């Protein structure tokens, strides 16, 4: 559960750091390059942290497998959430 939330947040940050998605989420906003780098590195950390947690909880053979599966699924979940986000502009 915690790992899924972390992964969603991680992918969410990575997605929001893309100019196209950022423009949809924040109307008329501008994304500075420093903010973008910060969002991306934080996102990447949030994606890797669950690997550590799962390695501890599930052991070295199941942990990475669960992580790899969750990585794909959470990314798809973020894509679907972005698609049906209320109030967001249509992507171009």
């Amino acid at each position, binding site marked *: 559960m915690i790992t899924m939330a972390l992964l969603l947040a991680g992918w969410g940050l990575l997605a929001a750091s893309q100019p196209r998605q950022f423009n949809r989420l924040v109307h008329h906003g501008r994304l500075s390059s420093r903010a973008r780098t910060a969002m991306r590195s934080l996102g990447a950390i949030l994606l890797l942290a669950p690997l550590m947690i799962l390695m501890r909880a599930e052991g070295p053979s*199941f942990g990475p497998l*669960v992580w790899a599966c969750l990585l794909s*699924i959470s*990314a798809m979940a973020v*894509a679907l959430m972005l698609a*049906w986000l209320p109030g967001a502009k249509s992507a171009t």
Partner: protein
Amino acid sequence: MGPTFRASMNWLHTWSGVVLGSLLFAIFWMGTLSVFDKEIDRWMMPASRLALPPDFSYETMRPAYLAALAAKSPSVLLLVPNQRNPVITALWRGPDGSFAQHLFDPGTGAELPDQGTLGGSRFIYPFHYSLNLKVLGLGYWVVGLCGMMMMVLCVSGVVIHRKIFVDFFTFRPERKIRRATLDLHNVAGVLGLPFHVVISVSGLVILFSLYFPSSIWAVYRQDARLFGREAYGSYVRPPAKRAADLISLDAIVAKAKSVWGQGEPNYLYVFNPGDSASYVQLNRASADVVSNISYVAYVDGTTGELLSASRPEKPAALTQRFIAGLHFIQFEHWTLRWLYFVLGLAGCVLIATGLLFWVESRRDRHRRLGRSGARVVEAVTVASVTGILIATLAFMVTNRALPAGASVLGVERGAIEVSVFHLAWLLTLLHAWASTGRAWIGQCWMISGLASLAVLLNAVTTGDHLIKTIATPQLWSVAGVDATLLIAAFIAIRVALRLARGARPDAASLQGADQR
């Protein structure tokens, strides 16, 4: 990477996708269901919805062994009950040479009434790897070819995808169906890529001895048994033709466990039953590791001596077992089971949207030019996507609708279910051909109807309705199947409504997003 390379990859992706997409969808769909084959078994075999006794004795399996002995079978495979499959399953060859499966109560050892179904593990699961085509082993080769092509499609798909990172999260359901389909195809493909590749490769590795027989043949010549002995440590001896009783099964298991140190066997394979040269092959259950490793021990059936125990396997065999384990998920891990199920569904979405995109981008042009290509592919696509869902649901509905022991024109219950599956599949193809354009909507309604009917019939015929099954831990497998069916029914209704809106000529594609 010049434009010509990308163009040729595009051509490869398009045409191998169109030709094999339908088969691939069938394989992915059945594979996804096979993740829960035992749970589907419980659903389709109500008498097997039992609780595992807390102190299981291996002697409880003796009635099953004696029944096989009475049938004069040369060997009998006894599967040890476990949480997912809480019955003693015995497989033996009858006097007429045909294989038969019998179920026995794990508490009393009494034989359960014949459930008259192939269920998930003997219809859906074999369909996944052999399409149930037994002629010349053709099914295996077709599936193998599809596995190879899946890898080709993954690689060429990545090559032709122009903006992988820019489009990483891009899914625009509010756009025209063609655009939304391609988005969904890209999202399911790129984000699920590791799974799609690993599952195709591991599928091929599992059946390596079939696809690459020459590698074994070159080293071992005709002696395939020697390969089995050396790679997996198997043991054989002929019957002595003197009658003798099998000693206590508990003692046999204890002997094997003395070699393993820990862990329980998942099957007992008794060879030469009733003979003084009888011997038992035991395999340690590997529920706690990813690898589908077999720790096999052979115990003498009359003296209880250890005959042979497999040494740790050779590195190549170990690697093969790890990759096979990744694919088989026989380990005890419910989270992973569900994750595999979801990723399998993503694979289905990937293939279906790929086919759909081909049709959508050609339909109007082909109609203008008077070509039939798009129409043919559309009918085949509808039948292979929604059609196989309908056929599977019809299979399950038939299972609950037919009374036990039913037979029509001498066809047994299990065979009727399979016939209904094929008949329903054929009918969806005819329907798709007859009602072009609106076939998707009709079949989505059909899916939601059949899925709801299956849940209803299960509640009526067995009394295990959803509230009761959720409250009883031993019935959670049934609850899971029912809940999944209801979710499928709900999604099918949503899709049908959305498509019906899209089928109206104007404005539909513009408003789509806001109304959700």
